[in-house]
């Protein structure tokens, strides 16, 4: 028994993972082509892609996966949820710990107003109903980094319920079409983060850092409306963008500000849901998608081979790319929930219920928070499409890359070039270079101003687009030269002098009589070769249209 990890290796399951990955929904070449067609164009939450077995032995066994997410977002606040300790990532261990955080006897929680506001903002942005009265509960379990022996959370009556999150998944030939989808949000609750345990196996001891203990978390619980890793990844990415736009969480997964647990089960459509597993330890969006797809396929394989799925917690192993049973707790945990007696009910107000003469410092007005909500990613994308005439998928790309939208907007501000031109340069050339070198926008050697100047030169027909590419390449070297300097140093200006261009055309024609002959004999495509040759002679500085015109004139004369 035990060691399920070894069992799979024995059966060689790990090697089947590549196929599992390829089989996830919406991907081209998925073995379930007909299924993904069915999905296309739907935004329904009920729609789920179907999985086929790897070895379709007993007829047509179709599987559907059901995925729900629990997302913990660390609230961006100066101090913790119930204490005055500072919140800071990577501070020296145990340097941000108040008496309450260490659970000294007699200490009491005091709710942080900022955290409540962040929860209300997030709830509103996710179309939730904000509960005017919510309650806090204690959830008990013994763990070294949970000094009180319980976590304060909102189990019975959370601050926000019944919302929805609309996100987009890529589909179509080049994954370039964006299909909107919606996942329902069950609830958003305020709760405390735990500390961190560092296990020193060598000395068999555990070191505790309580800096994180008591930091405010928003737990966002999604209904199980998702059906594959890609959907989950897209939904989480959208949530991340929303949180960042609101400023309620930095939502950086690598720093643990956004943590995702996935509940996964598979079943035959029309039959009851299967036993679910919970996959933890998903600290990047890429791993989230991988882990979910792996787990779905593992469950299908397990069931296909006559096995059963255990209701267990599994952890995703990044290196091996698989999920493994955590085997942490013997039997079921009973958290023995109890109302937190030290915190009165959290009461929020709106414009109609606000008591007259209430001290604004003592009350939270939902309507007032609603008025101050910033532009949400969905609206930003719509605006980009309308304002700059770009495709929806381009707007997705602009928002999904950290800092790209800002870069784009800065270029737009400084250039006379057409927005479509800017979009194309930013998304194709600029982003292409970044991706190639695996750089973030903030690490780019090309500034928005430099790109704007370059696009101006192009727009004023000072340089050709070929020359512009050359200038961009020079800029990427990061030597501090402006596009103007590069153009003049390399003599990349467009040849505006018609006389010398005519001369050049003439000599090229003379030098290639065979091509001229071809043309005259009725091969119209031969002119392209001549154009190419002339361009080469001009070092791409001449406008191809003008070259063509001169050549045609000469040939017909």
């Amino acid at each position, binding site marked *: 028994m035990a060691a399920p990890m070894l069992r799979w290796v024995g059966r060689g399951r790990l090697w089947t993972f590549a196929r599992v990955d390829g089989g996830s929904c919406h991907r081209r070449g998925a073995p379930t082509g007909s299924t993904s067609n069915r999905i296309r164009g739907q935004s329904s939450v009920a729609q789920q892609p179907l999985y086929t077995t790897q070895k379709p032995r007993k007829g047509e066994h179709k599987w559907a996966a059901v995925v729900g997410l629990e997302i913990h977002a660390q609230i961006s606040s100066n101090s913790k949820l119930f204490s005055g300790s500072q919140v800071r990532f990577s501070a020296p261990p145990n340097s941000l710990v108040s008496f309450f955080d260490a*659970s*000294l006897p007699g200490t009491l929680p005091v709710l942080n107003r900022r955290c409540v506001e962040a929860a209300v903002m997030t709830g509103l942005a996710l179309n939730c109903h904000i509960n005017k009265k919510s309650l806090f509960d204690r959830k008990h379990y013994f763990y*070294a980094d949970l*000094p009180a022996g319980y976590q304060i959370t909102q189990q019975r009556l959370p601050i926000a319920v019944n919302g929805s999150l609309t996100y987009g998944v890529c589909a179509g030939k080049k994954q370039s079409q964006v299909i909107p989808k919606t996942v329902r949000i069950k609830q958003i609750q305020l709760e405390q983060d735990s500390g961190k345990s560092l296990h020193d196996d060598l000395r068999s001891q*555990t070191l505790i850092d309580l800096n994180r203990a008591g930091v405010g978390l928003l737990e966002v619980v999604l209904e199980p409306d998702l059906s594959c890793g890609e959907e989950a990844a897209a939904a989480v990415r959208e949530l991340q963008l929303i949180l960042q736009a609101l400023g309620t969480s930095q939502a950086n997964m690598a720093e643990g500000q956004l943590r995702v647990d996935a509940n996964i089960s598979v079943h035959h459509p029309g039959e009851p849901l299967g036993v679910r597993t919970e996959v933890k330890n998903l600290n990047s969006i890429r791993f989230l998608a991988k882990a979910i797809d792996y787990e779905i396929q593992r469950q299908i394989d397990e069931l296909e081979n006559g096995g059963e799925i255990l209701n267990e917690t599994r952890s995703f192993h990044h290196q091996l790319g698989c999920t493994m049973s955590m085997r942490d707790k013997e039997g079921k945990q009973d*958290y*023995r*929930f*109890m109302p937190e*007696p030290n915190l009165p009910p959290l009461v929020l107000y709106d414009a109609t219920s606000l008591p007259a003469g209430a001290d604004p410092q003592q009350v939270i007005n939902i309507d007032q928070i609603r008025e101050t909500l910033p532009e949400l990613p969905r609206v930003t994308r719509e605006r980009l499409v309308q304002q700059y005439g770009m495709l929806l998928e381009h707007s997705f790309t602009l928002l999904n890359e950290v800092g790209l939208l800002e870069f784009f907007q800065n270029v737009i501000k400084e250039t006379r070039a057409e927005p479509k031109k800017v979009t194309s340069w930013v998304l194709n050339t600029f982003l292409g270079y970044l991706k190639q070198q695996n750089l973030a926008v903030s690490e780019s050697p090309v500034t928005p101003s430099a790109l704007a100047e370059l696009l101006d030169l192009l727009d004023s027909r000072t340089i050709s687009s070929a020359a512009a590419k050359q200038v961009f390449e020079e800029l990427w070297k990061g030597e501090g030269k402006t596009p103007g300097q590069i153009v003049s140093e390399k003599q990349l200006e467009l040849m505006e002098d018609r006389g010398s261009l005519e001369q050049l055309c003439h000599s090229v024609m003379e030098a290639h009589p065979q091509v001229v002959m071809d043309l005259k004999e009725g091969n119209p495509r031969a002119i392209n070769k001549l154009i190419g040759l002339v361009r080469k002679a001009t070092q791409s500085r001449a406008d191809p249209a003008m070259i063509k015109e001169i050549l045609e004139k000469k040939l017909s004369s």
Partner: protein
Amino acid sequence: MLGRTLREVSAALKQGQITPTELCQKCLSLIKKTKFLNAYITVSEEVALKQAEESEKRYKNGQSLGDLDGIPVAVKDNFSTSGIETTCASNMLKGYIPPYNATVVQKLLDQGALLMGKTNLDEFAMGSGSTDGVFGPVKNPWSYSKQYREKRKQNPHSKNEDSDWLITGGSSGGSAAAVSAFTCYAALGSDTGGSTRNPAAHCGLVGFKPSYGLVSRHGLIPLVNSMDVPGILTRCVDDAAIVLGALAGPDPKDSTTVHDPINKPFMLPSLADVSKLCIGIPKEYLVPELSSEVRSLWSKAADLFESEGAKVLEVSLPHTSYSIVCYHVLCTSEVASNMARFDGLQYGHRCDIDVSTEAMYAATRREGFNDVVRGRILSGNFFLLKENYENYFVKAQKVRRLIANDFVNAFNSGVDVLLTPTTLSEAVPYLEFIKEDNRTRSAQDDIFTQAVNMAGLPAVSIPVALSNQGLPIGLQFIGRAFCDQQLLTVAKWFEKQVQFPVIQLQELMDDCSAVLENEKLASVSLKQ
């Protein structure tokens, strides 16, 4: 001087009849002499003397901080005191020195009070006798009073006098004994189900439980957060009002304190007459277990009010009989939760076992808690299990609401204050008391006091008279929520009518010499 009330000694300090240091030294010496009472767990002699010195400077410069400046006080050992060991009378917290003061302690110190020490209690305040702490039981000073001794001499059945000492009641028995034996002028107790009023009744003191939310719980090591209130033990009602005035008010560190403006300071008018008052007598409090003496005093008290023109009404609190079992479920559930933090990791006791974290938790908690605490944790966890939660915890919460509504209904019927017994009888001898287990005792002894905590109301026990045995008997007044001042005003009037006798401890001092192996006693006047 030591036998005076807080108000009297405060006046003496202001008039320069005595200095804070002299007063402090007198109290310290009496603490030493009465060490056998086991009232104190820690005597903070150095701290107190230093505070006295500072107080003395203030008096010299005419910058007294008020009525409490230079007044020796004691604090139950379940309030956090910065730099002073705070044990809750448990192995679990032996050696634990908190880095902060409870808000109530800080407020006393800010008013210039002298902290004499930390007083004994039942472990984590779980008990009604002050007999179940790791430092041993507290002895009731009345065991050594002239009044009790004389009555005992008349009783042919009394044999072994030394082992026949009485309990103080509890769980704030140390605080009660400390005030009763004149080692300080006021003491803080805590009151979850009667823990301040019960020992006050047994020790002939005023024991006041303020409205829930009036006084901060920050720094009070909790028993039941939703019922705990810091309690005040003094020799008279006026003293309790002075201390309440220093303690009451919202605390940003305790979100359950109320912000509504409260009349401060708590100056109590002297009621000229009670003809506009309506006193309620809850009929359910007339239980068969009530001793005939207490019963007769209770009815005499009602007669007194009536004869002075007050309206006295029988009222019904129909859910009273469910109070004990309801309290049991709620108390143990919160205890199970509150005790979860004592795991040996951050502070307090840690066992030697280091096989695994879980094994360390288990052994630490087994070694650190006594049977009573462990038993309550076990019950509480049972009630909180998912399968039991609805049947026990939620039901108990509903019953609690009914009990609270009983009081609301009684007060809505025009009653100003309720008059009830505080305890079933006077204090019993220790040997008698321990014949029953802690649980049975707590259930019996809290019967008149517990419901008040579930409703969050203010209540005060006032010493009324001595029993046939020469022991104090107290009666309880219960007021409307946040009508603490009205409640104390009525209590003050009653106190004046009954003229409860002062404890005569001269005999104790003589006996003391035997108990303390002939230690030489300084002569102190213990009589007013």
